[in-house]
Each structure stands twice: as C-alpha cells, then as structure tokens.
C-alpha cells in the first residue's frame, strides 16, 4: 500500500519535472552570468581556473556558508556521540602485519603531499581546498586502517578547524576595511598562471584545505572511537 502511494507521488513529481525540463535545452551555449565569468574571469580575479574564481571570488559567500556547514556537522557529531569519558578499549587490538604497517607509514606523507599540492594549486589546476582536504583526510583514514591504535591529536584538529574558519572570516573583514566590500580581492593579482597570483584566493584555499582535512579526519576519528 505504502509502495503504491509512494510510486504515485513520484509519478506526479516526475511528470511535472519532465514538462519543465523540456524547456531547458541540453548543451545550449550559456549566456549572461556564465559568459561573464568565463570572459572576464581572468582579468578580474587573476585565477586561471574559472571555477575557483567563481567559488571564492564571485560567490565567496556561498563557500563561507559551506565551510560553516561542515563545521556544524563536525561539532554536531561530537555532541551526539560523546559518551563522557573516553573509554579505554578492552578488546585486544591485533597489530597489522608488517607489510601493511610499513606500507601505510610509507604512503602517508606522500598522500599528504599530494593533497597539499592540490589545494595550493587550486587557482591554476582543477582542485582546491575541499578536494585537497578530502585527500588529506583519506591519508588519515589509511593510518586508522593500517596502523591500529594511533589517533590524531584532538588539540591539533580543534586548532586547525577554528583557525581555518577564522582566517576566512578575517580575510573577508580585512577586505571590508581596506576595499569597502566584504571578501574583495585586495591583494595584487600577479601574473596569471603563476603560483603567487590571484590575490586572496590561495590564502583562503590553504585555510580551507587544512580545515576540511582536519574536520573529515576528526569525523572518522569519532566514529572509530565509537566502535572500539
């Protein structure tokens, strides 16, 4: 019975959306806002990756909101899962085999380096703070899987999360004080395609990279702690 009602509702929604979608041609060249960003993106912001300039410069407020959402999820997870004292685990943790252990320890700094490369070059190549942060978090997950019993330090992750967000807001406020608009690009734009270009964009992406990396790692850490 429930399935029939569900299917009926979905059918109505599907018909409505299909009618609306026939008005949106697939693959048509974009006018207005899309064109403007692609045409004027490089001279106005200095970043050659137009998606980065949209994310951090034209629509930087959305990115601030997104950073906040991830922050809320981390805190919420911590608030729901605190079981008071950190229980010492009673189960014996079997150490991983030598190959796995050594391999993980060997790969860990390489993956960290790769993640750092991705978020530092966010304005030149595809990538950016969020992608780089996710890669850094996957390095920490590797450590959890391969070298049992090691944990990230809570102090360090708290520091990284708070500082990352605070740097983003402070850069915006400095832009407000210096240039009259929140999040205006007030540093020199440099030569396009070089590492030190695009004003505030690399700074914000570095802050976001550290923040997202530490947040995702601490989410995994709390979930792992819950099951041990």
């Amino acid at each position, binding site marked *: 019975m429930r399935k029939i009602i569900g299917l009926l509702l979905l059918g109505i929604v599907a018909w409505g959306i299909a009618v*609306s979608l026939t008005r*949106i041609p697939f693959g048509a060249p974009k006018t207005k806002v899309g064109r403007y960003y692609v045409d004027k993106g490089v001279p106005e912001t200095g970043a050659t990756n137009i998606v980065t300039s949209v994310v951090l410069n034209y629509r930087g407020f959305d990115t601030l909101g997104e950073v906040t*959402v991830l922050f809320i999820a981390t805190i*919420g997870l911590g608030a*729901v899962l605190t079981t008071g004292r950190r229980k010492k685990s009673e189960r014996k943790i079997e150490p991983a085999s030598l190959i796995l252990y050594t391999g993980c320890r060997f790969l860990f700094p390489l993956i960290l380096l790769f993640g750092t490369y991705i978020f530092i070059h966010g304005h030149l190549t595809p990538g950016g703070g969020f992608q780089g942060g996710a890669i850094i978090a996957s390095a920490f997950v590797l450590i959890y899987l391969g070298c049992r019993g090691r944990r990230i330090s809570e102090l360090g992750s708290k520091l990284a999360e*708070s500082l990352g967000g*605070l740097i983003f*807001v402070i850069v915006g*406020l400095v832009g407000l004080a210096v240039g009259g608009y929140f999040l*205006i690009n007030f540093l020199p734009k440099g030569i396009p395609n070089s590492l030190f270009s695009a004003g505030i964009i690399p700074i914000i992406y570095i802050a976001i990279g550290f923040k997202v990396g530490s947040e995702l790692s601490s989410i995994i850490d709390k979930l792992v702690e819950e099951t041990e």
Partner: protein
Amino acid sequence: MVNPVLLIAVPLGLAFAIPLLGFISQKLEKYIPPVAMLFNLIVSLSLIPKVLEQPIVVSIGGFPPPFCINLVAGPVGILFSAIIALVGLLVSIYALDYIHPVRHSPRIDTKLSNGVKEGATEKYHMLYLLLLTGATGVVLTGDIFNLFVFFEILCISSYALVAYLGDRAGVESAVKYLIQGAIGSSLVLIGVGLLYGLFGTLNMADIARNIDSVSPISVFVPLVLLITGLGVEAAIFPLNAWLPDAHSSAPSSISAILSGIAIEVGIYAVARVIFTVFGASSIFLFLVLLGLLTLLVGEMSAFSQNNIKRLLAYSSIGQMGLIIFALGMATSYGVVGGLFQIISHSLSKALLFLAVGYMIYRTGSMEISSFEGMGKRMPFTSLAFTIGAFSLVGLPPFVGFPSKFLIVRAALAKGEALFIVLIALVLAGTVIEGAYFFRIVQVLYFKGGETNPNRREEAPIAALIPVCILTILIIVIGVYPRLVTGILNSAASEFLNRVEYIRSVLG
C-alpha cells in the same frame, strides 16, 4: 552607517573563535553568544531608520549585482534580523544557567533534566550561535542559492541541537526531523537548478525581472518544489509531521528558538519566494486555504494533548497556519497583520517555552496534571506563562491582540463572502486555543494545594531576566502598537511591491 554584512560576519567569526577561547578559559565560552547577539541587536536597531527610506544593497566581493551575491537589507530583512537578535539574546541569557555541564556524576536521568550533560558545553554554544547566524543570513540575502546555503546552516544546526542531550526521545525526533528536512532541502536544490537552467542567473531580483519571459507552466514546477522544500521548515500542513516530536524533545531553550525563530524564518523564505521572486498571484487563494487547514489541524491537535511541550508545539503549527492565512491575503492589511503576528508569536512562544522549562525541571514531568499548584510554587514563572498564553490567544492588552485584530480587519476588508466564512473558521480556531490555554492556567492557579504551599522554588535569576524582559515587551508593544507599525508598513510594501525591490537592487 554599519555595513549589514557585519550582522552575519561577526557572529560567524565569534562562533569559529569559541574553541580558541576555550583553550584560555572554559568559563567564558557561554558569554560569547549573548555578546554576539547584543551586537546584532544594536546594529539592526541602528539600521532601522536608514532602511525605512531605501533598502541597503551590499554586494559581496565588489562586483555589480547580478554577477555576485548581494545582501538586501530592506525593512523586512532588518525587522527579522532584529527579532532574531532579540530572541536569541534573551534565550542565550536563559541558557547561562539552564545548560550546565556536570563532570563525572553518577547516572543522570537525562530524560527530564534540563540541559545537563557530561563534559563541556562549548558545542551547545557554538551550534546555537551558528543557528542564529544561519537565520540572519536567510533573511538578509538576495540570492537564491545563498538562501539555500544559509537555510541549510539553520536546519543542520537545529538537527544537532534537537539531539543535543542524547536521550531516547531527542535522538528519535532528530532522526525523523533530519530525514524530512533533508528531503526538503534536496527539493529546494532541484528547484534552484531548474531556475538556473531557465533564467541563467541566481540573483533573486534578476529572476524576478525575467519571470514573465517564460511560459507559466515551466515556472510552476520550480515554484512548487521551492514551496514544498522550504515548507518543511515552515511547518505548512502536510509537511509538519516532524514538528511535534522535535519541539517537544529538545531542551527547552532550543524549543524556544525553534518555535520562535526557525519556523518564522521558514515562513519568511516561502513568502520571499512567492512574493518577490515569482510574484505568483494565482496561488494566493490556495495559500489562504492551506493556512486555514494548518490552523485548524494544529489547534485541534493541541486541544487533546496532555504533554505541555507537545501542546505548545501543536500550537506553533496553528499559529503558522494563521500567519500563512494572513500573508496569503496579499493585501496591505493582510501582510502587515501576518508580520505583526510573526512578532507576536516569536515573543509569546519563546516566553512560554522558557517559562515551561523550569517548571518541568522542578516537577520532573511534562504532563499538565503535574503542574497543579505551580501558581504558588513559582509565582513569577506562572504569571509569565499566563501572560504568554493570553497574548497568544489574542487578549488585550497583550501583543497578540493588535495582530489578530489586523488579520480579522484584513479579511473583512476583502469584502468577499468567502473571506467572511474563512475568518469565522479562524475565530473558531482561536476559541479552541483559548480553551486549552485556560485549562492550563486553571491547573496552574486553581488546583492543587496538597503540596506545601510555602515552598517557593522560583527559577534562578538568569532565567528570570529574559522572562521578565519578554513579558514587558509583550505588554508594551501590545499597548503601543504604533512602536512597530512604522516598520511593518514598510516591510509589507516591500513584499507587495516587487518592482521597487527589483529597481533597488538592479537600478
């Protein structure tokens, strides 16, 4: 003149800074939300004279409006942000004592304790401040995807706060709330995607300017998706199944914020989409009927409740129905009445939940029958509860009276026979509301007496200050509604006059 961006940026920065402050001293953390909200309140009130003449349009990033995100601080935005700051400030003062940590205590029954939880409480304060930041962002923004992002900030922090105590009821309600809210958010995102595909821009004024260039049927689907998605948070009739559970299982200070701010911001989002972005005059009658249905369902469900917080939650649903009814009439009186009802409901419902919080803590139960004799045990709190209840029903001289009066007058001014019938049904709903509130007041004052009447256990000072201030505000605005009618009239004309909005953003 202060830049309205600071209304969002300063609380956000302070929320990020709370853990850093916690390294220095953990006692200071709970004072940051009141400080941030005090700042917001002062800035909002100081901007009111400026926005009455001309809305302040601020672009983020320094680019011209359709190519960037802009904030539109008009009369509606500043009015809502003032309400959010005021209620947020008062509830955060209440929470100074209500939410306290307990270290390593033996088994605490977290079922009906107030916000007692092992460990530090910095997470509560961070989530609380971020909820209010999200709410302020929703009301100030002028870009529809930005509306979605700040709306998500509001919703996700409320999911986490409902489950904050970690007890059975809280976690179950939070899961159900989360699932329904997440479906709603995905529907909003589909609607935003369709709007972008049709118009090529995400700026609300830009979409509003071009809304007539496409056929009505292709605009209808994004409108329905947006109303349905935003309506989950706004507690419109078939979408509010999460509300009674969530508002009754949360800690009382959070119930006050959810009922007093979160659902009103949901209604704001729905109204902004319908009035400004789409200008959809053809669905106003549907809104009126939907509002009436919500009102009747809410009030009738509240009548049969025994659990006080569930009763107040159903009463919130009823009041939201009344507000949608008023806004749906789309005349000047109607919209002013609806906005006034939002102010009245915010203040009164927050007062009711704050008063009830300590009553529940003293008696250890949420059943109405256990509040017998509370009039003697907690005289200030019971008096505050009574005033809040009378204000919600609409008795003079409290703030509920001018707002309901304006709504009735708006319906009569419409002149059609249909509205006479509808307003009669609304008044029937008000009668039911009066019935169940009088029943509670009767239990508070006129029953009981077996318990020792000399034992006065009043709530602590930190809880009494916000209760007193709310009571004073309810009486003062009720007696002098002229204090707020100035800004309410400008706000109503901002909603009803789309062309003016588009002109002020895009020139």
